[in-house]
């Protein structure tokens, strides 16, 4: 039995914002199936009472003083923009996508 179906892979591509073609999806479905079957080994570890570790360091809530500091000028911030207009990032429409 496969660990992941092609439909699930197509759904993951949508969630990941990757517009993949059919060939790419077919190829990835087979590879992801193989990888997921292999990494599922973590489930062999009897770990009911083991706390999770999300990070190597036991650091929490690192704050800095709330002080005004120099930052990038608008021209610097926009220098790498694919499109800019009136000191703003110009983006494709974000509203009315359902229409």
């Amino acid at each position, binding site marked *: 039995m496969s660990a992941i179906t092609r439909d699930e892979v197509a759904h993951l591509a949508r969630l990941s914002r990757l517009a993949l073609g059919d060939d790419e999806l077919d190829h990835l479905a087979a590879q992801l199936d193989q*990888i997921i079957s292999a990494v599922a*080994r*973590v489930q062999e570890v009897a770990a009911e009472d083991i706390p*999770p570790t999300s990070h*190597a360091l036991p650091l929490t809530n690192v704050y800095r003083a709330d002080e005004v500091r120099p930052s990038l000028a608008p021209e610097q*911030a926009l220098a790498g923009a694919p499109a800019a207009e009136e000191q703003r990032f110009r983006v494709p*429409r*974000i509203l009315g996508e359902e229409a």
Partner: protein
Amino acid sequence: MSELVTKGAAELGELIAGGDVSAVEVARAHLDRIARVDGQVNAFLHVDAETTLAQARAVDERRAAGEELGPLAGVPIAHKDVFTTADMPTTAGSKILEGWLPPYDATVTARLRKAGLVILGKTNMDEFAMGSSTENSAYGPTRNPWDTSRIPGGSSGGSSAAVASYQAPLSTGTDTGGSIRQPAAVTGIVGMKPTYGGASRYGMIAFASSLDTPGPFARNVLDAALLHEAFSGHDAMDSTSIDAAVPPVVEAARRGDVNGLRVGVVKEFHGEGYEPGVTARFDEAVEVLESLGAKVVEVSCPNFTYALPAYYLIAPSECSSNLARFDAMRYGLRVGDDGSRSAEEVMALTRAAGFGPEVKRRIMLGTYALSSGYYDAYYGKAQQVRTLIKRDFEAAFEQVDVLISPTTPTTAFTIGERADDPMAMYLADLCTIPTNLAGNAAISVPCGLSDGLPVGLQIMAPVLADDRVYRVGAAIERALEDRWGGPLLAQAPAL
């Protein structure tokens, strides 16, 4: 080959400080070497001789003006193309960032500029540091100077190849699952992964933030320690940076003795599944350590066998989140913005065109592991394995001062051999991953050849005991070089 390019960083630093040679002459010798051999190696993505020479001139002027400069002032360095540089493009090996000029320097870059190191260029890498061969670069593979039909390791393969082919005495890399130690091992040089948080990640393009660690490459242990010291230490711009003194790595590398030290051989990383030549060189290294007065015992770390699967859930999960920033809106590539498409469509088209196959695989895998319904069975379990691996290290370090293993199960494989078999590729990092999950320090030093290709010895120490791996590394380096009659790299075929 100019004699200047065969010298190590410490020696070059002394020659420049003593006025025997200028930073400009040293930079020129390395630029000439790059022009002559990089066509065969493809270690560099970006070289700009004018910018490099201007930096070298500035160092010579600072010295002439009487400024007190550090031990590496005027020494050239190559930066992995994952560190932002305000005067050179930064691509992370990806098409999605082709031509991007960052608006700021990474902390590592900035600190090394201040210390007077001269940037030769930016080195090739697996796209977004995902890979073990540098074949995943959007700009073509880098080749191993020992045999140009083979991989130089990855993801920092441009940095390892540049140092191993005398194009640079030093380079920077990043290590998320072995991306410094594995390339160092397969090219016959020294590569070190510091304790997580020991050096700043600010300006280092993120792959898996809880694992990513910047670190040094060099041709000897002392040079690696000097570079480590020069860029390490607390940085307020990285909230996971440790606010503690940098471990005394340079002193340890100069001292280099193991008398009375307790050394543990990781039982799970020895024997079956390892190339015979790798095991033979490793066993010889163990004998050398014993002959130098170390007490060597076998130590079991039973959960290390689960490190690889746990890593391939944790790292892709973090990558799927980190790489969401490549949205075609603020910087980088934008595809399909013809006025008819929505932002979301443009985003999906851009990401499909701009990311390579391995990056797509990992984003999808991470999205899967984090999705509701699968989270507990995959990401949750992997985080519990991470706890068990930390505990294995803690228990082991109650018995021994350092742990050792081969750095990699095999020597450099041929280009293309594992390119379309992700699981075979992932095995290259089998021995290096536990250290990333636990956040402690580890180094790879050359320990001989197997069928004419370099083998690496991995030395692991507890969190913030980075000096210990340099101490052991320097001791074994001295003993082995006595035996070989010089550095291992001297046995590499000429390019």
